[in-house]
């Protein structure tokens, strides 16, 4: 292991995270407590699930802007299936996840069959899926879910928030798949050079189709967790979450042009953002001031990483 391989983006980012944790725990003694950190894990699960799927998509050189709208649509459908159609809640939640997965499949079909660039395709479905959520719900919210349902979003298993287990499981599986399987390498191959990947006999279209479908699935899964956490469904849920997820992925070292990016990087990026949000709010900085800082961190981190890379290759 050489020095070069140690100065990877993830290593730098992890150091930045440790630094942030140290500084923030000096700012407030309520920050570095187990209860607080676990609660922060609870809050970042929805963005996290979406960001993990987004890592794969960005690694292929694509993007999915419709994730927030799929979240909103799946949330609304949970309420509609349960409250309006009278399905048992577990069935309703699964059906809503199926709707979200289909929405993702729709993205994939538009992108692979019609060769519409992902940015445009998902920009269109961002409007379409959010519009469906608004139209179906007519801006009415559904409340009053049974108590057991809140275990997913508000409860704990073995002392850890339930949804954090979900996020951990997805993160571990995703990082193994992306790093160690033939299929994961295909993702990078597509992102580095799609034409070459196609000529090497890799199933480019099938891989992409699967990725956008998976992105729909994780968005819908995030929706059910979201509903369980905040005890209500509204059609505007998840608005803007695509930008949070993309920020985490890019901060985590993925190249927006494809070919680079790891699940570990994304998870560290997520933690850094969440730590900043929470730590600064405990230190008395307003939420909006924190948003500003996250924007600055994003730009500076990429700038620094660019400088390191260039000095490294020369």
């Amino acid at each position, binding site marked *: 292991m050489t020095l070069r391989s140690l100065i990877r983006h993830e290593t730098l980012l992890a150091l930045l995270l440790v630094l942030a944790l140290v500084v923030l725990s000096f700012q407030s003694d309520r920050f570095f407590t187990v209860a607080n950190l676990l609660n922060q894990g609870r809050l970042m699960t929805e963005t996290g699930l979406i960001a993990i799927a987004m890592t794969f998509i960005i690694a292929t050189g694509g993007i999915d802007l419709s994730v927030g709208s799929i979240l909103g649509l799946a949330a609304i459908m949970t309420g509609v299936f349960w409250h309006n159609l009278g399905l048992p809640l577990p069935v309703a939640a699964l059906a809503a996840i199926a709707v979200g997965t289909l929405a993702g499949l729709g993205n994939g079909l538009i992108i692979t069959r*019609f060769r519409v660039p992902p940015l445009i395709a998902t920009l269109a479905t*961002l409007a379409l899926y959010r*519009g469906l959520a608004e139209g179906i719900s*007519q801006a009415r919210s559904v409340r009053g879910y049974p108590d057991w349902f809140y275990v997913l979003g508000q409860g704990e298993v073995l002392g850890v928030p339930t949804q954090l287990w979900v996020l951990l499981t997805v993160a571990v599986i995703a990082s193994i798949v992306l790093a160690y399987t033939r299929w994961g390498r295909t993702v990078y191959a597509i992102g580095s050079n799609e034409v070459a990947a196609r000529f090497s006999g890799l199933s480019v279209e099938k891989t992409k189709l699967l990725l956008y479908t998976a992105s729909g699935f994780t968005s819908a899964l995030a929706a059910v967790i979201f509903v369980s956490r905040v005890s209500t469904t509204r059609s505007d849920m998840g608005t803007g979450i695509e930008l949070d997820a993309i920020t985490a992925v890019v901060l985590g070292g993925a190249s927006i042009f494809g070919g680079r990016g790891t699940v570990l990087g994304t998870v560290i990026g997520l933690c850094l953002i969440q730590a900043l949000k929470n730590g600064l709010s405990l230190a008395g900085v307003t939420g909006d001031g924190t948003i500003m800082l996250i924007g*600055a961190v*994003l730009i500076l981190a990429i700038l620094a990483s660019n400088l390191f890379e260039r000095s490294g290759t020369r």
Partner: protein
Amino acid sequence: MAMTGVELPPVRPRTSARPSTLRRLMADYGQEIVVFAAILALFVVVTMVNPRFISANNLTSIFSGNAYIAVAAIGMSMVIVTGNIDVSVGALIGVLATISGTLAVAGYPVWVAWFVPVLVGMAINGVIGILVAYGRIPSIVVTLGALSILRGGLISITGGTWISNLPPEFLIAQKRFFDIPFPLIAMVVLTLLAALWMRYFPYGRSLYALGGNPEAAVASGIPAERRVVAVFVIHGFFAGLATILFATQLQVIQSTVPSNLELTIITASVIGGVSIMGGSGTVIGSTLAAILFATIGSALIFVNVSAYWLRAVIGLLILATVLADMLRRGRA
């Protein structure tokens, strides 16, 4: 060969040496014609259902209501033509509108309240351009960061309050010249000027060169970095002009970021035929697309569809337009 997925276009026998005018128009302005046809079709159908759709009042609101989106989409189209993108323009317009309103209420002359934001917009986008061109950070990343900074900064300074008591002479978007609403005049004039500049001036053409093939553009002597900074500054200029129309249309300004404005503006550019890959598209298309959105919004009201379906219909229409464009290109 079939296994590789590469398809050769069918050889088409040439009937004449020069392509017909119609075919040339379709090749140059295909997407613009599609959007224009969509607007016409909507007008015909909705007017048959409800003739009041083409009343003077409604036409005025359709053609001037989205003028600020069309003007902002001019700059956005230029940015996209060079192969970049800006997701922070909605936040920028929110910030500039707040500056504009604050200056107007503080008693500065109205032209100061109108044009200081234009300069600020150019300066902020200049910084973004420098980070993209010289910092070599992809524009989507820089503007994603800028979006957070502008949005967070605006709310933490103003708290999202309403600015009221705007002086009447400040509200230029409500004025009419020769009985034509000012936003409509501004939209048409700015669109035509920008379209001519991009089509016939070397500087304008160089934007297409840069987006179409950056290496070839640099090899032919176009200073890529300086052009990218310039195009962001020009985009800031149009965002500033859009702000004048946006901030002066009502009696009050809310000092927050208008939600989803950046996506509406990007969508207008893209639906208007600006290729997200860079190198092609015109501002005439993006302006037509902005008018199309306003037409859809108004049409829904006139055929009595709940406003909550508006976004779904716009989404479907965007999708239909994009797919039609893909099919058309597949055949061309």
